[in-house]
């Protein structure tokens, strides 16, 4: 099996080497999108919903820089865990595509890493305390409110883009976002989440092909 894979790998390497002969299709392309993105928290039964937008620029054929925003709009649960969890990220992507010299009908697989910040505020929590027993039982309930905090986050991601035309694309991507909110119920709220984004994007070549 390993021999077969090594053979495949050699063939792929040669193909890629040949592909670089074509003029760059991606260089100086500006891309953007806005879509809905569900997020699934890994330590909670909680599904978050975001409006996800990004702006991406290709300074090179295989490298792009991308700024990203996730606007927290709510959760799928009736009693959401979070009031706010909007996120800003900035990072770099590496692209694996066959360089045909044009974007049309091109399929691009990409991977990236982005550091960033999440603006997080958990929803209020209510705790009840019971003192005494029998008819003299007294129950008091306390509501805790939490402040908005800026959390440093790290987000590796991967995905695929298909370009049916010169100006439009369809994409699908999956990302992991890690972070922690300290001070939730006197402890820590694990904010690790997987977010899925898919939809229609647009691109614009800013300069003529190199």
């Amino acid at each position, binding site marked *: 099996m*390993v021999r077969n894979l090594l053979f495949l790998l050699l063939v792929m390497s040669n193909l890629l080497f040949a592909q670089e002969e074509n003029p760059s299709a991606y260089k100086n392309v500006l891309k953007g999108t806005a879509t809905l993105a569900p997020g699934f928290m890994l330590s909670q039964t909680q599904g978050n919903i975001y409006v996800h937008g990004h702006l991406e620029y290709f300074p090179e054929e295989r490298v792009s820089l991308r700024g990203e925003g996730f606007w927290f709009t709510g959760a799928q649960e009736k009693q959401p865990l979070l009031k706010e969890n909007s996120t800003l990220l900035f990072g770099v992507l590496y692209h694996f595509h066959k360089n045909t010299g044009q974007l049309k009908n091109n399929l691009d697989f990409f991977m990236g890493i982005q550091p960033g910040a999440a603006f997080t505020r958990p929803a209020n929590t209510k705790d009840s305390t019971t003192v005494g027993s029998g008819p003299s039982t007294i129950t008091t309930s306390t509501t805790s409110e939490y402040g908005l905090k800026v959390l440093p986050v790290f987000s590796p991601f991967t995905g695929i883009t298909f370009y049916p035309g010169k100006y439009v694309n369809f994409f699908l991507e999956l990302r992991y976002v890690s972070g922690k909110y300290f001070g939730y119920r006197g402890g*820590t709220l694990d904010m690790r989440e997987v977010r899925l984004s898919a939809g229609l994007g647009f691109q614009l070549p800013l300069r003529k092909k190199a």
Partner: protein
Amino acid sequence: MLKSVPGIKGVLVLFFIPFLMFSQSPAPGMKMKGNYGGVLSVGGRSVLSTFNDGKWGDMGQGAGGQFMLQFSDHVNTAWFFDYISTGIGNYANRTDYHIGWSVMYYFTPSNAEKTPKWQPYVLAGHCFDYSNLRDNSDDRNFDERWSSAVQGGLGTHYNFTSRFDAALQGQYMVHLGNDIETEYENNEVSFIQKGGINLEGHILITLSFNYKIADLW
């Protein structure tokens, strides 16, 4: 143990395919004015902070940015900002801001003719930092300090193209100045400032990406 996982070899080979692809795709280089002195790059970084005050655990996570200004084929400098958030047990937390610089010496010099794929380096530097320690149960219970630190360590760039690289580095950061200790007794958190020079610090592991934007001289 890995050998017992079915198909692991294939997965490993597939994992390394992208790295071979990178070597096949030289990017159009930047216009160079001689050697690498004057090359300016910008990037972002994610950091992990651990071994705080000589104890493993309570790993902090942070994000930040940096720019690098190279002075020769062998010597580069990094100017960085980090924002790090760390738990202290399950009862308190700390937020650290670093702003500083490091000098890096490359064992494999930068080369405009043929970009080396790996560029290991040794680094040393200095930073200013602000720390804020806070009780998880009571936001009004906190302490803070300003201090300065020196750091040293090892790292390596992986040059994906002649202009874009990722770098992984580990460094030990020794803070000079007051130290704040956290005590937790009977569900009460207290912060105690200790004077004098404390040579205990923490390990900072950084994963960064950098893009060369100009050759200034």
